[in-house]
């Protein structure tokens, strides 16, 4: 599933000035398309490889502009706007006309030059903060050709690079790029292959094997465990996950970040016509602090955020 047009990639969005996606001030390039389909995904619009029309009901003021622009997709009823996404080809024309700022397109094609232009804009801020660019998604490793070109260019320009990935790609892809990457953030979602498959659509075999291999070769990896209530937050699974990381042998520095659950993605699910499954309440501070103490007794380098 590499990008079809060699000189463009599907990009969901590019954000600037982030301080949460790696060291310092960072630009984050969100690639569109992902091989997994985690049910709790925070960027559900990034999962399909093609653009989807997003409609945020809470912002819609029923002005009817969209109906004027694109009758095939939009219709006005007494209850408000109705949308037939099957007729939408993602041209994006309706977006600029939407007076409520209620419409968006989940991803668009961007050329290498355009993406790099965005990355380059904050170069001075990277320099003074130790920041750089983070490639995320979706799954950035699913568009390896563009990713590699960008990474190489960043390396020659002295821009720090970071990759956020779930690592469910052939190892050759990782092998082709890791030398240009300064640091990795890798998700560990569940240690049980079947549960993993049930909630994400795929087993964890390839992921864990890729992690073991990259660990031999790369020096800076942070593992992230997103806490999903009732799915992966049992002490047993967390212990296994931490043990797995602790037992890894190689030259890399190991860090684990356990992330508190939140339900902030709900409006995004509704915007693409999908049901949002709420897995439960965010963990309390007490629970998190208990968790931290326990996991730290197994492995010192665990942060709970």
């Amino acid at each position: 599933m590499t990008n079809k047009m060699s000189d463009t990639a599907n990009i969901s969005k590019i954000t600037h000035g982030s301080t949460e996606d790696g060291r310092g001030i960072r630009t984050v390039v969100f690639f569109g398309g992902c091989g997994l389909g985690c049910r709790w995904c925070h960027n559900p619009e990034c999962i399909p490889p093609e653009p989807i029309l997003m409609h945020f009901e809470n912002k819609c003021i029923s002005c009817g502009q969209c109906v004027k622009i694109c009758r095939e997709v939009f219709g006005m009823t007494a209850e408000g706007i109705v949308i037939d996404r099957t007729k939408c080809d993602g041209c994006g024309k309706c977006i600029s006309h939407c007076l409520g700022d209620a419409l968006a397109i989940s991803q668009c094609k961007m050329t290498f030059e355009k993406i790099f232009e965005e990355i380059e804009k904050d170069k001075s801020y990277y320099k003074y903060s130790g920041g750089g660019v983070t490639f995320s998604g979706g799954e950035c490793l699913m568009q390896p050709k563009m990713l590699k070109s960008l990474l190489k260019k960043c390396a020659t320009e002295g821009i720090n690079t970071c990759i956020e990935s779930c690592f469910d790609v052939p190892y050759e892809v990782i092998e082709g790029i890791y030398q240009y990457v300064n640091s990795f953030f890798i998700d560990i979602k569940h240690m049980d292959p079947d549960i993993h498959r049930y909630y994400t659509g795929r087993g964890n075999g390839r992921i864990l094997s890729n992690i073991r291999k990259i660990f031999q070769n790369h020096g800076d990896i942070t593992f992230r465990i997103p806490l999903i209530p009732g799915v992966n937050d049992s002490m047993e699974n967390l212990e296994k996950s931490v043990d797995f990381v602790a037992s890894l042998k190689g030259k890399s520095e190991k860090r684990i970040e356990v992330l508190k659950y939140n339900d902030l993605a709900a409006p995004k699910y509704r915007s693409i016509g999908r049901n949002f499954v709420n897995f439960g309440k965010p963990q309390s501070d007490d629970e998190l602090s208990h968790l931290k103490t326990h996991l730290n007794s197994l492995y010192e380098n665990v942060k709970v955020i």
Partner: protein
Amino acid sequence: MENISKRLLEAGEFYASGYTEDCDRSRFYRTAKAMLRYREHCSLPKYNGELLYPNGKCIIDKMFVYPEYAFTHHFDYESYDEYDRELAECCQNNIPMWHTVREEPQNGPIYGGVYTHASVNYFRIMNEGLDSYRERILKCEDKDFREGCLLVLEGIEIYRRRCIEYLRSVSADEKLIASLEKIPFKKADTLYEALIGWNFIYYIDLCDNIGSFDRELDHWYNGEDVVDVLRNFYRNVDANDGWSLRVGPEIYPITYQILEASRGIRRPSVELCIDGDVPEDIRLLSSDLIKSGSSNPCFYNYPIYQKALHERFPKIPQCDLDKFAGGGCTETMLTGISRVGSIDGSVNTAYVFCEYMNECLAQKDTFEDFYEGLIERITKYANMLFETINDSYKYASEYMPNPVRTVLIDDCIDNGKDYNAGGARWNWSTVNFSGTVNVIESLLAIREIIYEKKEMTAKEFLERLNAEEEFFYKRLKKCLHYGVNDKCADSLATDFLKRVYSTTDGKKSYFGDGFVSSSIQFITYVRRGENVGPTPDGRKKGEPLCDSLAPIFGNDTKSVTSTLGSVSSLDLKLALGTPVVNLRLSKKYSDEMLFTLIRGFFENGGMMLQINCISREELEDAMVNPDKHRNLLVRTGGYTEYFVNLSPKEQRTIIARTEYDE
């Protein structure tokens, strides 16, 4: 006239009395005499055990004609009826008043009062003593000029004597009295003496700016802790609505104390100049000050100011450029050696735009035509402003001398020329362009909606705009904006500002070295918007204009680096008078991140940055419960103010500024 002068003196009109004593002599001499009589008779501020003297409000006597630093003197028209009618009329007939010659309505396309801030040469006064000034004055050829300057010294001496006698009578601190026995006529030998002198001269100059401060004080520094003395001095600056001081980029031990003393005090506005790395303790102290709600210091990109000054005034040698400091709000000046009209006047570009758009938009077939016509119109008004300022300068140089600044600012004595007639070593006039970001955003909207996407005719556009139609305003907000680091939008902004700022290029001023452009809105951005109709940046009729070159609130929501990226893409050096940028950040920013933003911005061409770290909640609460937030300070226009002192409209613009979170 002698009779009148006597009557004025008896009526407590000390200044006017002096002015009317020697009607056959020059205005310079008469003004100096007026100041002398004022200093002889004015009431002295109370001493309450402070470390310094004088303290508190500078002018405490009620006089119809009273001295003032920017305009030589003012007439108290506000309480006209409380004065003896005959004497007041006599003052009006015999004493000239500062005026802008061609009085423009203050709510029209151009406005301003030909104002002048300065900082006198404190360092030279403290380092040489005024006795040495006397020797230089005696060499002046012109009799009235020479004797006028001597009267200034005599006035200072009389005032000093009176202060000492008073301090003795209340058994004030002996050290304070002993220091005042020495300075400012003999040179200061210790840091303490220098600071007593600085404060004393600050009052003699009627309380304006402190100017470049730490490199000067370092001359006397010997390990003393003078934070309390500095705080005393700052309280005096604050009590008189005084202005600014500069520290950095070299960091001296005294720099820390100067910064620390500013904690929680509104004025002076503290300007920290930066050139590359900032030592960690200065970083920590500054971000702590900002986060504790001081809104001080603001940050200056030192090398770029130096470069811009050098390009604009190639004749100025480096040793003089080193004296750079902001005065008034943040106007660029050279401490002790310059006369900078600041701010002499403004072109309200939003007003001009609005007038021009309603008149001409429908007739312009292309955006380029529309744009060029606008530039032409702004240039026309700018030229009118320059003429007005020059007329005022001509008038001031003939009628409104300033003998005090003539003595205290170099090189007036050596040039034998009054300060207001071009006697200072360097002279320029700062003009301001207000509403520019409103115009930039409006141009972007017009280009996109009418000329590029052809969504409606100009006629429909204007009708819907002037009717402030809700959906139309929503459409306007969706246009491409300045402030999101978009090349296409930013290049229009760059071109527009370049054309506007360049209107000062090569323009001759009545005396001195011409004009410099600036973007400093003080608090006038609220009032200047009152008479401007709806503008296509989404601003409604009468709403405030932009308060700095930062993008319009709400349009800059992409990220803080994008906002700063847009601003730094402008050719800011062209607004050498200072291109003010206000930014509100969340308190969560670490000191490291804060300085990353500042340094990144400066590396890309940013010139100055004013940061507020106060949350929306805190500001909103201060609007409702002002008593709980008396000390909450904010940076606005180009200076620091207590938030609760601002009008509700001004408060709302500050709250509306986008707050960037980490």
